[in-house]
Every structure is written in structure tokens, then in C-alpha cells.
């Protein structure tokens, strides 16, 4: 019996692996997205261990591209590629942490709102409406006059606190729609508790939406964190692509053609990462949602 189950399980895995490969072959742009994302994850995890930390060296200012310096060196003689590599972990950390926190807050508040209804629902949706209307780059700028943002986790938490409303709203309306379906009725009759219904019956149904929302929350978090670092509002936490751009900007190197690759490196990285994420989100949709596939 046990053996049979295992074989059955293994069969399912090979089958879904085959299916996954098929999707990869068909959804080419999505595969490119996955490859880009994997590249960045390797860059952010293995990269800082392999590539030595950038050090300024006055004898190496503005060196051209070479094997030793793939992106050349900057106005302080620091290797540009090393700065990019050492800036990757913090960008990815804030992006994924914000995405995760956003989704968690949205799931909790959205399902409470959709399932409990009543006064709690009104209060949560009212809070969501208010947060949605506040323009958050200006808000962060005003907050920066008072609060010191110096910790990646604090930034992620603050970004998440302003990103959950639209996702929570969508989760709420999906839960409201699911509540009327027969399989939820059945689960209620069997005697499942509310928590069980939410986690075992409802959330798996909206998993594709949640996964895609996670990617979009990460994309927005990258926009915000790099932008705030570029404005000079988030103080220097190690290396960060936004801080690289800020430095180029405040020292005027952005208008200097010798500094071309120092300026281009973070710009290209952000374009590549954001494009990779959006393409990956479409692959996710394809993999998780069979209804899209059949079209």
C-alpha cells in the first residue's frame, strides 16, 4: 500500500515535470523571465562570496572595460561590476521581503474582510481606501524628514504597509464569490472550521492570483526602494544600485561620457530585473492556472 502510494506520487511528479517542460518550451518569453530571475538569484547569493568587495584605488580611475573590470571602474577607481554584485542582495532582499509581507497582510485582512463581513469588513476596506489614495513616494519623503530609514527590514515593512490594499481588496472579492460555490457549502456541511475552509478550500483556489500578486508587489518594491535611494532619502545601507545612481547624480558623473558604464550598469540591471520579473509572472500564470493554458 505504502509502495503503491510512493509510485503513484513519483508518477505524478514526473508527469508534472514533463508538463512544466512543455510549458517552458511553448512560453518562450516566460522562460527568458525565469532564466533572468535565476541569474539574479545566483548573483545575489553566490556573487558576493566570489567577487571581492569594491575598494577605491586612485590609480585606477575610469578604466575602460576589460576582463578584469567587466563594467570598467568609476570616478573613485572602484570596480563597477563588484559594486553591482554587492548591491544585488539588498535589492533582492527588500523586494522579496516586501512582496512576502504585502501578501501576508493582504491574505489575513482580505480573508477576514471577505469571510467575517460586518463592521470589521467596513473598517478594513475603509483603511484600504485611505491608504490607496495617499501618494506614497511623497509620503515617504515627508516621513524621511522625521524617521531614519536604515534597516532593510524596516523599509520592507513600511513599503508593505502601503502596498497591501489593492491585493486585499481582490482577495476579499474572490472569497465573497467563492463563498457561494457548492464545494464551500459542502465543506461547511461536513463541519470544517472557518480557518480550515479558508486555508484548505479557498486559498488554493486563489493561489495563482496570490503568486502573481507577489511578483507585482516585488516589482513595485524595487521601483520604490531604488527610487528612494536615488533621491537620497533612504540612507546608505551598504551598496545599492539606487545609491550608485544617486552618487553619479550628485557628483555630476551622470553627464560625463567617461562615466558611461558606471551610469549604465545599475540602469541596465534594473531594466533587466524588472523585465525578468514581469515575464516570469506570465510564466507563473501559465503554470498555475490551467484555464489560461487551454485558451
Amino acid at each position, binding site marked *: 500500500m505504502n509502495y503503491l502510494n510512493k509510485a503513484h506520487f513519483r508518477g505524478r511528479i514526473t508527469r508534472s515535470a514533463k508538463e512544466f517542460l512543455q510549458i517552458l518550451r511553448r512560453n518562450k518569453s516566460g522562460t527568458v523571465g525565469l532564466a533572468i530571475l535565476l541569474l539574479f538569484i545566483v548573483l545575489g547569493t553566490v556573487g558576493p562570496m566570489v567577487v571581492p568587495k569594491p575598494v577605491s584605488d586612485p590609480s585606477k580611475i575610469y578604466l575602460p572595460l576589460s576582463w578584469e573590470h567587466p563594467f570598467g571602474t568609476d570616478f573613485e577607481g572602484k570596480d563597477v561590476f563588484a559594486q553591482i554584485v554587492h548591491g544585488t542582495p539588498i535589492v533582492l532582499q527588500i523586494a522579496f521581503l516586501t512582496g512576502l509581507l504585502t501578501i501576508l497582510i493582504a491574505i489575513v485582512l482580505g480573508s477576514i474582510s471577505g469571510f467575517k463581513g460586518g463592521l470589521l469588513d467596513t473598517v478594513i476596506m475603509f483603511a484600504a481606501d485611505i491608504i490607496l489614495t495617499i*501618494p506614497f513616494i511623497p509620503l515617504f519623503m515627508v516621513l524621511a524628514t522625521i524617521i531614519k530609514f536604515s534597516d532593510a527590514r524596516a523599509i520592507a515593512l513600511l513599503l508593505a504597509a502601503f502596498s497591501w490594499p489593492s491585493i486585499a481588496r481582490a482577495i476579499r472579492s474572490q472569497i465573497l464569490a467563492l463563498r457561494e460555490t457548492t464545494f464551500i457549502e459542502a465543506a461547511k456541511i461536513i463541519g470544517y472550521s472557518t480557518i480550515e475552509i479558508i486555508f484548505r478550500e479557498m486559498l488554493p483556489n486563489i493561489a495563482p492570483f496570490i503568486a502573481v500578486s507577489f511578483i507585482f508587489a516585488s516589482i513595485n518594491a524595487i521601483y520604490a526602494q531604488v527610487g528612494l535611494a536615488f533621491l537620497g532619502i533612504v540612507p546608505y545601507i551598504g551598496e545599492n544600485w539606487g545609491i550608485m545612481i544617486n552618487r553619479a547624480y550628485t557628483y555630476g558623473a551622470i553627464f560625463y561620457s567617461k562615466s558611461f558604464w558606471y551610469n549604465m550598469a545599475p540602469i541596465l540591471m534594473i531594466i533587466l530585473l524588472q523585465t525578468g520579473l514581469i515575464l516570469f509572472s506570465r510564466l507563473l500564470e501559465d503554470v498555475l492556472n490551467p484555464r489560461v493554458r487551454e485558451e
Partner: protein
Amino acid sequence: MDSMGTAYRIVRSYIFRRCVRAFATIFIVMTLTFFILRLMPGNPIDLYIINLMRSGGLSYEEARNRALALFRINLTMPLHIQYFEYLSNVFRGDLGNSIISVGTPVIKIIAEFLPWTVFSVGLALIISFVLGIFIGTLMAYRRGSKIDSILITLLSAFSAIPNYIIGLLFIVVLGAQLKLVPFTMLRGAYSPYIKPGFTPEFIADVFLHAAFPILVYVITTIGSWALTMRGSVISVLGEDYVLVAKVRGLPERRIMWTYVGRNAVLPLFTNLAISIGFIFGGSTLVEFVFVYRGIGYRLWEAVGARDYPVAQGIFLIITIAVVLSNLLADMLYAVLDPRVRIE
């Protein structure tokens, strides 16, 4: 009895509830800015007093009096009275004075900088909306084709790339490397040596200065308009009246724009009304990149100089603008789709 019924209906009505929500939002944001300014440990007023004592050699009393005059508040009064005074000041349009440019009212600064933001982002919004609708309709008619799938990928990638990054790309490639565009000359909303007025010279200069910010806004927003329009057109194409029009033998072009286009564009108008809010607030980073002297750039300057009254005043005005345009969107929605009024 009947008047009671009418009153009840008004309170329950969609528009009334939206108005209440809009004003509650404005009220909450105002309250937050008030308490952030006054109650935070090491709040701006205390810092400013210490700063004055240190740099100006003033006594605590003198420094405090000067700070209070600037911040338009009287700290000796109980907190709730300060709060009501602040509220009534804001409602009269009195947002206090700038600390850095001494004596300049915040509202005057906003009146000077806001029009440039409204002009540049507003124009970009119109261009992006019209072009997006055009492209979206064509995509829907060629759905499933190679061009359609390429455009989907391209447009969604464009909307994922941060607008300020595209602006920087222009500066680094067109400005620093190819030296095609003199970006340092295009700073500000117009050239300082040209006298403002309704002269062709000045108008051309204004458009030249706004050109790149507008281009960046259009590139990064056109994707969502086109893709939304595409979806909307595809759903309208399945309607019976389109089939009937085809059966009647009407020319394809006429069906495309008067039967399909007009109906498909309706849902986009509420999105347009919501976007009006972004005319006021969604531009800070792009204005910073091009040193375009709009409200977002002025906010950054105020934050950098720790000019609290200006920073908070601008934030408050931006938020109020967003809330009011959301209210407009809700009302437009209720007019266009009568179903929401009956809830």
C-alpha cells in the same frame, strides 16, 4: 415620514457615501500631518529651536518665539486647541510659511510650482490615453497575431521599468554619450533668459523643457491603457449588437470605431479620472531626474532642506488632489453605470 424616507435614501446613496469617505480621508491625512509634526520625539519644531539657538546665538525664549511664528502654532495652548486652530488655518488655505525662504507662504510656493506639474503630466496623460486606445483597439482586432503577442510583451515590459530609469537612460545615452540633447540646458520649466508671456518663443521654450518628462510619462503609462483597451474591445466584440451591425453590412471601419470603440472606451474613463490624481503626485522622481521645476521637485528640495512646512503643505495638497479626483471617478462611474447607484 416622506422627508424621513428621502433623508434615508440620501444617506444610503452611493454618491453621499463616497463624499463622506473622501472627506474622512482628507481629515485623517490632515490629522496625521499635524501629529507627526508636533508629537514625534525630536520633532521639527524642537530641532529648529535648537538650531536657531546654536547658529543664531538666540536665547531659548527668542528662538522659540521665532519658531512658533514660522510654524504658525502656539505651543503654550492645549493640544486640542492647537489642533483646531491648525484645521481652520488649513481650510482657509493658510499652510504656514517656508523656513528657508523666510516669509514666503507655503500656499504661494505651491501655486508657483504646481501648474508646471499639472501641465506636463496632464498633457502626457492625454497623449498616452489617446495613443493607448488607438493601439489597444488595433491589437484587439489582430489578437493572436505575431504583432499582438510582441506588443503585449513589449508594452508590459515598458510598464514594469521605472519611469525615472527611462529618464536616466535618455540622459546617459542621448545626453552624455551621443551628445544629441543638451539636458543641462533643459533644466527648469523654462529658460531663465526668456521672458514669460504669450510669445511664440516662450511657448516653444516651455514645450522644449517639458518634452522629455512628457515622453517618459507616455512611454511608461501607454502600456496599461493599450492593454486595458485591448481587453475591453475583445469583450465588446462578442456582443450581439456588433454581430447585428456586421449582418446589416455596415463597413468594417465604421463598426470598429463607432460601435466597438465607443463602447469599449467607456470603462476606461473611470481609470482616466483616477489618473487625474497622479497628475499631482506621481511625478516626483521624473521631475527630479530632469530637474523639471514642478511640485515634485519642490517637495524634494523642501525635504532636503528640512523645510517642514513646505514639505507637509505640498504633501497635503497632493493628497487632497488625489482624493478629489478619486471622488470624481466614483461619480463618473455612477453616471456611466447606473447599476452601482442601486446597492
